[in-house]
């Protein structure tokens, strides 16, 4: 009889400890969540980053404004990029080169049509004039950068 009562008491004691522990975890978790939300504001640099990428592409394809080479290998050797985080559509007259995540282009189009997108990429469209054998050509660039976790 004595043993049975002790067992019940032990069980009750353990339950109260579990309850205390649960409340402690809840309170600490709440504090951490609030502080993290308040202080982890992100500084969005993707627009500037897209401009830098565009300039680097132009410098690779046409250093000093004079067309050197326009092919996939030139762009790939230009700078290392993560295919999941970037989309690049480069057009020189009738030649077109596409790299990266196509879905980012779709998100950019959606944003342009005022569709509410919560996590949007940074989109940049630029046009450059380059010379090829003294003939002027248009280089169109469309760049989209994702990097949502680090910028939004």
């Amino acid at each position, binding site marked *: 009889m004595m043993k049975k009562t002790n067992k019940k008491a032990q069980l009750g004691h353990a339950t109260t400890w579990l309850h205390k522990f649960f409340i*402690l975890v809840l309170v*600490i978790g709440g*504090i*951490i969540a609030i*502080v*993290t939300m308040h*202080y*982890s*504001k*992100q*500084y969005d*640099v993707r627009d*500037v*980053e897209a401009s*830098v*990428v565009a*300039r*680097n592409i132009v410098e690779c394809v046409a250093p000093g404004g004079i067309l050197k080479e326009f092919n996939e290998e030139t762009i790939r050797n230009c*700078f*290392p*990029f*993560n295919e999941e*985080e970037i989309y690049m559509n480069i057009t020189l007259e009738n030649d077109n080169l596409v790299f990266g995540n196509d879905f980012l282009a779709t998100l950019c189009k959606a944003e342009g049509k005022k569709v509410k997108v919560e996590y949007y990429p940074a989109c940049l469209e630029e046009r450059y004039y380059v010379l090829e054998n003294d003939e002027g050509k248009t280089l169109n660039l469309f760049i989209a950068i994702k*990097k949502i976790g*680090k910028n939004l």
Partner: protein
Amino acid sequence: MLKDKRGIELGWEFIFTLLFVVAIIIIISFWIGSQASGSAMKKQILAKEICLLVTSAEPGTTIMIETEKKMSIIRQNTGIVVKESELDRGYFYDCYFKDNIDFSKKDDIMIIEIR
């Protein structure tokens, strides 16, 4: 005698709970302090600014940045890590760094060379 034993047990339980709660309060206070001091934001801004500066620099450029003594700026693959101390995990930002970029440190000055 039985009552004394239970009292001692309760006493130990109280001390254990008190130490546990105090330790948690201290850890959380330090953590909130480090977050509120803006060090996380400072690391983030520094990493992103350096990333853009280096990516847009012409070859043959040397960038010198005066940093705090304990702060370190390290290249990690194609990105950059800004750490406040050795124990700090740091802030990483992926850039578009090629093999022509060298990072070195002399006293409190960080030297970035773009070959």
